[in-house]
């Protein structure tokens, strides 16, 4: 019997190992194929591809600068809007909400992530765009002189795209932020409360402790926003131009791929589009890798300092000395940066 269980074990291990390796190979294969199929365009344009603005399929001149601008601009704007909201949601759910509210709130937030992108696009086109157009028409004249708000009120444009992207990014950032906030050890919180910290101070402490994880959550949202296609292409106006104005219709890399790939004929055109795909692939891979690294480093940090050594920099450095005795926790002294376990005098902020 033991021989059979041993061979079953082997099969199980090898089988699941094969699947794991397969996924890695698949991603590598995608990257390699994208690279191979964009050779014509890389050879022809080189770095100029990312420095020219003309996208002309008829004459065969391809410059992708407006697309990378549009992708980065829309994603960063989305981050700026979504991060405070997502963090607010995460903090509320993990720290402040009564337990009967937590589950429904989590469910509803994650429901936002379950809505298909094209549905967001259609909602954007028929609901958000007219609303934004009214907003744009109603901007006071003095604001219109600022380059950020200049241009005719199309409705479609960077502002609509940023709003839709931020709505789509909120569930991802908030759910990861919620998880990292939960990973803050209970001892940290209890220590803070024991020292008389108020609710808000304890939350600030937790946020600081989990800061790498929160950065990771924000970057995860960024990575998501970079690749978002259908929702963006319906509301961004699809015009390859670089403009600082929120009201101007612009273009992103994912949108141009979705729009032009099916009808693209001619090797150079297809190669140029695939080169855009390659860069988008590389960008999202890098951003997601960095975000994961941040999130995992929080886990390591938590395991390394179990409940001891509050790593808070405090203005009240005078409180440092009495705590040196708690070296019994096994945390090396240099890890207690600035403040130490119990940096704050009770009752004061």
């Amino acid at each position, binding site marked *: 019997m033991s021989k059979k269980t041993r061979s079953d074990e082997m099969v199980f291990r090898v089988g699941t190992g094969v699947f794991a390796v397969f996924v890695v190979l698949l991603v590598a294969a995608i990257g390699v194929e994208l690279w191979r199929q964009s050779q014509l365009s890389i050879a022809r344009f080189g770095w100029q591809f990312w420095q020219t603005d003309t996208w002309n399929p008829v004459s065969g001149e391809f410059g992708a600068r407006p697309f990378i601008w549009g992708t980065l601009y829309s994603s960063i704007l989305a981050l700026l809007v979504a991060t405070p909201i997502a963090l607010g949601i995460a903090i509320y759910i993990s720290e402040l909400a009564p337990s009967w509210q937590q589950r429904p709130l989590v469910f509803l937030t994650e429901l936002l992530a379950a809505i298909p992108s094209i549905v967001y696009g259609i909602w954007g086109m028929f609901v958000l765009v007219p609303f934004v157009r009214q907003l744009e028409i109603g901007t006071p004249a003095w604001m219109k002189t600022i380059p950020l708000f200049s241009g005719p009120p199309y409705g479609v444009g960077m502002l609509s795209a940023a709003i839709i992207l931020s709505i789509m990014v909120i569930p991802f950032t908030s759910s990861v932020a919620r998880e990292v906030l939960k990973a803050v050890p209970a001892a940290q919180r209890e220590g803070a409360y024991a020292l008389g910290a108020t609710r808000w101070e304890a939350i600030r402490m937790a946020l600081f402790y989990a800061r790498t994880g929160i950065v990771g959550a924000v970057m995860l949202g960024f990575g998501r926003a970079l690749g978002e296609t259908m929702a963006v292409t*319906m509301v961004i106006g699809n015009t390859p131009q670089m403009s600082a104005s929120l009201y101007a219709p612009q273009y992103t890399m994912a949108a141009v791929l979705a729009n032009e790939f099916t*009808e*693209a004929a001619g090797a150079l055109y297809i190669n140029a589009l695939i080169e855009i795909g390659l860069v988008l692939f590389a960008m999202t891979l890098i951003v997601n890798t960095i975000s994961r690294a941040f999130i995992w480093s929080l886990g390591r940090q938590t395991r390394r300092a179990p409940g001891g050594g509050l790593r808070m920099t405090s203005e009240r450095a005078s409180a440092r000395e009495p705590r040196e005795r708690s070296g019994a926790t096994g945390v090396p002294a240099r890890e207690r940066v600035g403040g130490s376990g119990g940096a704050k005098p009770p009752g004061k902020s």
Partner: protein
Amino acid sequence: MKRMMYCAVGVAALMGATLSAQKVRINGGGATFPYPIYSKWFAEYNKLHPDVEINYQSQGSGFGKTQIVKKTVFFGASDGPMTPDEMTAAPGKILHFPMVLGADVPVYNIPGLKNALQFTGPLLADIFLGKITKWDDPAIKKLNPSVNLPGTDIIVVHRSDGSGTTYIWVDYLSKISPEWKKRVGVSTSVNWPVGVGGKGNEGVSGLVTQTPGSIGYVELIYALQNHISYGSVQNMAGKFVTASIDSVTAAAAAAAKSMPADFRVSITNAPGEGAYPISSFTWLLLYQAPQDKAQAKIMSDFVKWALTDGQKYCKDLGYAPLPQNVVDMEMKALATIKTS
């Protein structure tokens, strides 16, 4: 015992597969514009010939043209004819067969406007080039003297995705405006001088219906089915023609007189009193001497059916049927396909 069961299931599956292999399956792909009428035809043809199953992948004209050259599909479909370069890249001679007609109409949104506007080709070219920027421009007023045009900006809406609809539109503009031909050119995707891009016919019509002062172009069928009002365009004979199934067929009939033998012709700006100037064929692409003779015979028979009996399904779906003189020419070309 379990092993015997698995074997039995496997054998049964194999038998089922071989039995169903008696059917002939032909694969094709290409343009999205004629997809509704093509699917209707394939379904009706299958009713007449139950052993024939034709699969069509509606992935775009670009797909149709590239895949037939690579021979991953037996037939292709395209809203724009293949260029000479594309044809020389193919391993054999590819024939073009016009199957139905399509047309583009100018749609616009001027709040409070009751009558339809009249346009000329050069006017449309200037609007889409960005040279005419306001609705009360003298050029527009001259063509529409009885209409009260507002002084608002013209917001141009075009297609962001590559499409046969765009091809028809820019083909017409290139013919009547040398500046357009030089600056922009003809393709399924072009570098638009002005305007915002909407995705698909639905994107363009969505933007136009929501944006006061906008103008765009959509497929005639789309405008008819969604009850969008559109303007009339002046044709080569000087008449202002509103697009309709009859005026589109008239354009093809008029162009048939100078039709080249390979049918690779653009029929925009066609001569004739009743012709609508922004019309176009959509073509089926077939090899003249394909390797699979059985499939060649079936496709040849299908095209023959589609060009005769099949045309009666066109009007219900909003496509303009081909005029008889074009069909006669095609039958002759069809006979040259080597089916044995």
